[in-house]
C-alpha cells in the first residue's frame, strides 16, 4: 500500500451536491478513484456523477463500504460533518473546507484521534497517489506515477513544484497537502513516519511556510528518524511579522515562525534547502540521479 490511499480506497463525498463536491467527484473518478457514495442531508436518493447520494453518513457507509471521506461542507457545519464521518467508522477524512474556526478543529482533532481516525486538512487539497487514488482536489494533470513523496502546507505552490518534477521526467509516490491552517489534523511530523515506512517513496519534498513550528518539529523528526533524502522549500522569507499571509496559519507572531529559523532547522537536520520554488525540481532530479547510480 502507498501512503494512506491505494486501490482499496473507497471514497465518500460529504457535501457532494454542491458545486465543489460535484466537480471534484468527477475529477476523482477521472483520476481512477473509487468514489462510492455521497452525502447531502435531504438529497438522499439522488445521484451525482453516477454516485448514489444518501441523507446521512452511516447509511452511506453501510450501503457502500466507504473507508475514506472528503468533506466539502461549509465551515459552520464542517465540525458536525467530521464527527458524523468518524462516528460512522470512517478512519481517513480529508477536510477541503477552509475558514473552519481553529477552536472547532481542536475538538475535531482530539475527537478523531480518540476514535483512531486521521484528518488531513482542513483548508487542504488532500491526498493523491498517481494511478491509485485521490481523495481531495489536487489537480489530475500535474501528476505522474513515480518515487518522490510530497508533503506540503500549500496548494498551488505544490502543484507548480510537482509539475516541475514531472517536467524533469520524474513522478510522485504520494502527495499530501496538509493544509494552511494553524491547527491541522496531520502535520509534517505525523506524515514523515508514513513516508519513511513507504516502500514506494525514495525521497521526499517538503513545502513549508512561515508561521508556527511545524517545520522545526519536522526538522527534529528528520534528524532523529528519517533516513530518506529530503528537499525542503519554505515560502514567506520576505513576509513581515504580524501579517497573515493568505493562510490562517502563515503568520509570524511574537518573533516566532520565521522562514529563517525553519530553514536553519531543516538545513541542520540534513535536508537540502531550496531558495526558489524552481530549484526544488532541479534538486530532486539530481538526488534521483544519484540514487539511480547506486
Amino acid at each position, binding site marked *: 500500500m502507498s501512503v494512506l490511499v491505494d486501490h482499496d480506497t473507497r471514497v465518500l463525498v460529504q457535501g457532494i451536491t454542491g458545486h465543489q463536491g460535484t466537480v471534484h467527484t468527477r475529477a476523482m473518478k477521472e483520476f481512477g478513484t473509487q468514489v462510492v457514495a455521497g452525502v447531502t442531508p435531504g438529497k438522499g436518493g439522488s445521484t451525482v456523477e453516477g454516485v448514489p447520494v444518501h441523507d446521512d453518513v452511516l447509511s452511506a457507509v453501510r450501503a457502500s463500504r466507504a473507508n475514506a471521506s472528503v468533506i466539502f461542507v461549509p465551515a459552520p457545519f464542517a465540525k458536525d460533518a467530521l464527527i458524523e464521518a468518524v462516528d460512522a467508522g470512517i478512519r481517513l477524512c480529508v477536510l477541503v473546507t477552509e475558514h473552519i474556526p481553529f*477552536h472547532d478543529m481542536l475538538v475535531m482533532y482530539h475527537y478523531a484521534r480518540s476514535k483512531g481516525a486521521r484528518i488531513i486538512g482542513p483548508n487542504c487539497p488532500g491526498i493523491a497517489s498517481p494511478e491509485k487514488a485521490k481523495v481531495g482536489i489536487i489537480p489530475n494533470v500535474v501528476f505522474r506515477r513515480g518515487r518522490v513523496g510530497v508533503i506540503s502546507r500549500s496548494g498551488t505552490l505544490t502543484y507548480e513544484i510537482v509539475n516541475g518534477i514531472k517536467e524533469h521526467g520524474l513522478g510522485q509516490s504520494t502527495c499530501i497537502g496538509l493544509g494552511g491552517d494553524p491547527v491541522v489534523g496531520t502535520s509534517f511530523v505525523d506524515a514523515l513516519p508514513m513516508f519513511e515506512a513507504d516502500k514506494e517513496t525514495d525521497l521526499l519534498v517538503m513545502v513549508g511556510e512561515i508561521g508556527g513550528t511545524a517545520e522545526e518539529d519536522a526538522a527534529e523528526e528528520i534528524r532523529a528518524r528519517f533516513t530518506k533524502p529530503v528537499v525542503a522549500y519554505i515560502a514567506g522569507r*520576505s513576509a513581515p511579522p504580524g501579517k*497573515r499571509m*493568505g493562510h490562517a496559519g502563515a503568520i509570524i507572531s511574537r518573533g516566532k515562525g520565521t522562514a529563517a529559523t525553519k530553514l536553519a532547522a531543516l538545513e541542520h537536520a540534513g535536508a537540502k534547502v531550496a531558495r*526558489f*520554488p524552481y530549484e526544488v525540481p532541479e534538486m530532486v532530479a539530481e538526488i534521483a540521479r544519484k540514487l539511480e547510480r547506486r
Partner: protein
Amino acid sequence: MVKLAEWRGKELFRKYGIATPKGTVVRSADEAERLVRSGGVPLPCVVKAQVLAGGRGKGGAVRFATTPEEARAAAEAILSLTLDGQPVRELLLEGKVNLSRELYVSVALDRTARLPILITSGQGGVEIETVPDEQIARQRIDPFPGLALYACRNAARSLGLSGAAAGDLTGLLRALYRLFDQEDAELVEINPLGLVGEHLIALDAKVIIEDDASFRHREYAEIRDDRTPLEEIAREKEIAFVQLEGNIGVIANGAGLTMATLDVLKEFGGEPGVFLDLGGTDDPKKVTEAFLLMAQARPKAVFLNIFGGVTRCDTVAKGLVEAMQTVPSSERFPLVARIRGNNEAEGIAILRAAGVTSVPDLRASAQAVVAEAGRVA
C-alpha cells in the same frame, strides 16, 4: 484576526467575571476632564492611549493625573500622538491601583499539541518575550474536560500565590479559559495582572478574536482593528490582501505561491507592496474585483503569477482583461504576467490579445517586473 482595544478587552473581562480597575473610555480632553470631575473615575487616575501598537509606556501614551486639570492635560497630550502610524483617537481613564506585584497570565494556542495553552509568569509588566524561559510556566489545557483545578493550583504555585490569592487565581484562570473558548479567541493575555492585597486585577487586556468564527460572533464584525482601509475592503470581499511597504503588487493564486512570488521578487531587488492571493477561484468577477482593489493600492508595477491547477488559466486571464478595461487610465500600471498550467495556452492568448505578455520563466518574469517598477520610479 480582530485585535480588541484594551477597553473592549476589559469589557469582555468584566463579562466573564475578571476584575479590572474602574474605568471609562473617552474621545476628547473635555470628556476626560468632565469624567474625572463628576467622579466617574476616581483620582489619582491613569490616562491610556487606546491603540493596538505595543510599547505605549515608552512613547508617553500612558500618563497619570491627580486632578481633573491634569487629566485634561494628559488627555490632550496623548490625543496628539501617533503611535506606529496610528493616530490616537480613544483614551481609557482608570483609577490608579496600588499593587504589590505584577504577574503575567495568558491563554493561547499550542499548534503542535493542538491544544490551548495556559502561560503564567511571576514577571509581569514586561513583554513576555523578554522573560527568561525558566520563569515562565506553560500548561496545556485539554478542551475535554477543560481547565483542570490542579493546573490552577500549579499555576498559583509557579506565581508564588497561596491562600485567598490562589483561590482568586483559580477563578480568574477558569474565566480566562472560558473567554478564550467561548469567544473564539486566538489570544487572551493579562499583562500585568496586578496583585492587590489578596486579590487579582487585570491592569491590561490583550484579546485577539479569530476571524473564521465570525459566523457565530457577529458582535465583532463592526469592530475596527489594525487593518488598512484597503485590507478592510478586501476582507469584506473575501480576498486575501495584505499591504506591505514596497511598490510592486503581486497577484497570485494560493497563499504559498503568492508568498513564494514575493520572495522571488525580493531576491531580485524588488520591493513587494501588495500580497493578493486569488485563492482557488477562477470566477472572472472575483478576479476583476481583486484587480480593481490592486489598482487602488497604486502599485508601480504588478506581477501576476498564476499556476492553473484547479483554477483555469483562461478564465483568470478573461477576468483580468475585463478588469483592465475598467481601470481609469490614470490608475493603470505596468503588468508582467506568468501563467502556467491548466489551459495555459488559451490564457496566454487572451492576455496577448490585450497587450500583456506572459513570461513562462519565474526568474525572468520577476526580473522584468522589478525593472518595470524601477523605470516608473
